[in-house]
């Protein structure tokens, strides 16, 4: 981890560092790898945890227990009692709902589903955003006007409400369909961001240079400009994953998500619908809520970490 050029740095800068503690000085001497960022690593770890739950859960647990009547209904988790005083059974360690579905199996199947919707919707939205943002910023003129006004308009419309109308009219829907629908509402912010960046980059020296060297438009866009945008794109992508999951969970909690596949939002919907709060069945809504929180906190940490990676001024000693 030590680096000869870096090791000399603290001495030359010593006069400015009077106020630093010993720990901070020690960290100064370490080779500064921006990717070795605790927030980023924690965030990725949390998300990997969700994915691992989905993968290993399927191997070690019977996911057929998500079906109605698969296990005894209304059982508390192991070590707790339900309102009838029955102690939780080891066969359903996280408890069961009133319809006899196993909570652990629901989480194993449901949690990766939420992540899947978020990532897919955000990927599609991102691709659309890159395409439209570059087109608008690079082409300018009428095309730019149309794209700009279009994204201004679409950014104001809350996706949830349009999706409510969609779902209410079409009834059951698959996870992928839901992701596609959500994607229709997450392209605006990357579009705006990329457009603004492309506009400023268009006049910069290296782009002018490339143009004078006879580089094609495509080369300039994807080889000269795009690499500069990567940090923004990552940040925007992660933020969109969060938005997409929030929208998806919102739909599911309104009872409008996919009906045939378990999702975390759907579990919460069932719990509220069957008055789990007054029946004191905290495990029913509690576990999916915790998993969603882990997911959101993980995404937030990744975003904060990425900010620090791409912007050294945010890093602290």
């Amino acid at each position, binding site marked *: 981890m030590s680096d000869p050029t870096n090791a000399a740095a603290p001495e030359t800068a010593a006069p400015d560092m009077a106020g630093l503690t010993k720990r901070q000085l020690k960290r100064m001497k370490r080779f500064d790898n921006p990717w070795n960022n605790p927030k980023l690593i924690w965030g990725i770890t949390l998300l990997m945890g969700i994915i691992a739950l989905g993968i290993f859960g399927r191997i070690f647990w019977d996911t057929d227990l998500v079906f109605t009547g698969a296990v005894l209904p209304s059982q508390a988790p192991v070590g707790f009692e339900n309102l009838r005083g029955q102690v939780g059974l080891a066969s359903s360690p996280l408890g069961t709902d009133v319809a006899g579905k196993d909570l652990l199996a629901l989480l194993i199947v449901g949690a990766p589903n939420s992540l899947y919707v978020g990532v897919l919707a955000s990927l599609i939205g991102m691709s659309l955003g890159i395409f439209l943002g570059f087109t608008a910023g690079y082409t300018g003129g009428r095309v730019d006007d149309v794209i700009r006004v279009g994204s201004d308009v*679409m950014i104001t419309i809350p996706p949830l409400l349009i999706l409510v109308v969609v779902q*209410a*009219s079409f009834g059951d829907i698959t996870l992928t369909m839901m992701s596609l629908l959500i994607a229709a509402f997450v392209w605006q912010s990357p579009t705006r961001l990329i457009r603004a960046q492309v506009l400023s980059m268009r006049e910069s020296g290296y782009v002018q240079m490339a143009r004078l060297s006879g580089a094609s438009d495509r080369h300039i866009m994807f080889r000269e400009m795009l690499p500069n945008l990567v940090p923004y794109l990552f940040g925007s992508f992660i933020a969109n994953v969060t938005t997409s999951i929030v929208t998806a969970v919102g739909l599911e*909690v309104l*009872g409008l998500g996919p009906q045939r596949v378990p999702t975390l939002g759907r579990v919460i919907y069932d719990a*509220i619908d069957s008055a789990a709060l007054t029946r004191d069945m905290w495990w029913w809504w509690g576990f999916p809520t915790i998993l969603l929180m882990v997911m959101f906190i993980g995404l937030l940490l990744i975003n904060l970490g990425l900010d620090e990676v791409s912007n050294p001024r945010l890093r602290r000693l």
Partner: protein
Amino acid sequence: MENTFARYLFNRFFTLFLTVFIAATLIWIIPRLSPVNPIDAMLGRMASGGGTIENSGAIMEQLMERFGFNDPWYVQYWLYIRNTLTFDFGLSTSSFPTPVAQMIGDALPWTIGLMMVALIITFIIGNLLGALMVWEHTPRPWKAVIPAMMVFTSMPPILSGLLLMYIFSSTLPWFPLNGAYSIRVEPELSLSFIGSVIHHGVLPAMSIVVVTFGFWALGMRGLMITVQGEDYTVLAKAKGLKKRYILYKYMIRNAILPQITAFALKIGMLVAGQVLVERIFAYPGMGKLLYDAILTQDYPVIQGVSFVIILMTALAVFLVDLLYPLIDPRIRLGG
């Protein structure tokens, strides 16, 4: 200068108009792409509720005519746009024949009231905490606690709502579980009614505040960092002004401007998020209306509620766009 401002105004107004128009059109097109005929759905519900229906063919024909489904699409579309823009959303199919506009009119005050209270509390708390994150005289424990509180920012208000319900309603019976006022008080302008409304509103409002204040705090933090290094702040310190006076009058005062623009955009997200909060708290606002309409497949209500909420969002954005040049003279001059 007059010219640039007029152009700006025109642009904002055009965007507002286009937003409302596109939203209305989407809401009109989507159900028509569906394979399910709303009249079929309505008759199906009648049949399941009251056994067989005599001469259902005639009823169906009558309803098709009544709702205008026999007209060519452009006539239907024109009538729809005209009616929507005059807030005539037709009649509810689940509580026939109540006009949708009347149902929305009953629900809207609850939503707006709850939203405004939550928004104002959030704005104040969030900006204050954000400023405290940067201020050098903030007590140490606060400096450690505030960043940790930012974790809530990433969550949707349903999760905070569920947790708050569990803690302050199920476990500790401090606040009621649902509704907007107790069934034991008459809805009139009396002290006990107002008290009941506030008592019922605490948890829904809190669940929104908890997840949205971080947005303001983080924004304020960034702004405060720039203001902190400005010459006028240094001068104020050099003059020996009181620390708090500098914080409020020099730093926050100058940093708060961009937060006001964000205010409008946040209203949009808040309204949509609030739909869900109202659903879990059974709060009689737009969200509950929407949820009940989804349960009974009441298309006119679903469309009406969606449209009104989108309209509110668009109007909020528009109003702040208008107010912004008045607050910040640089925009007015710069064009």
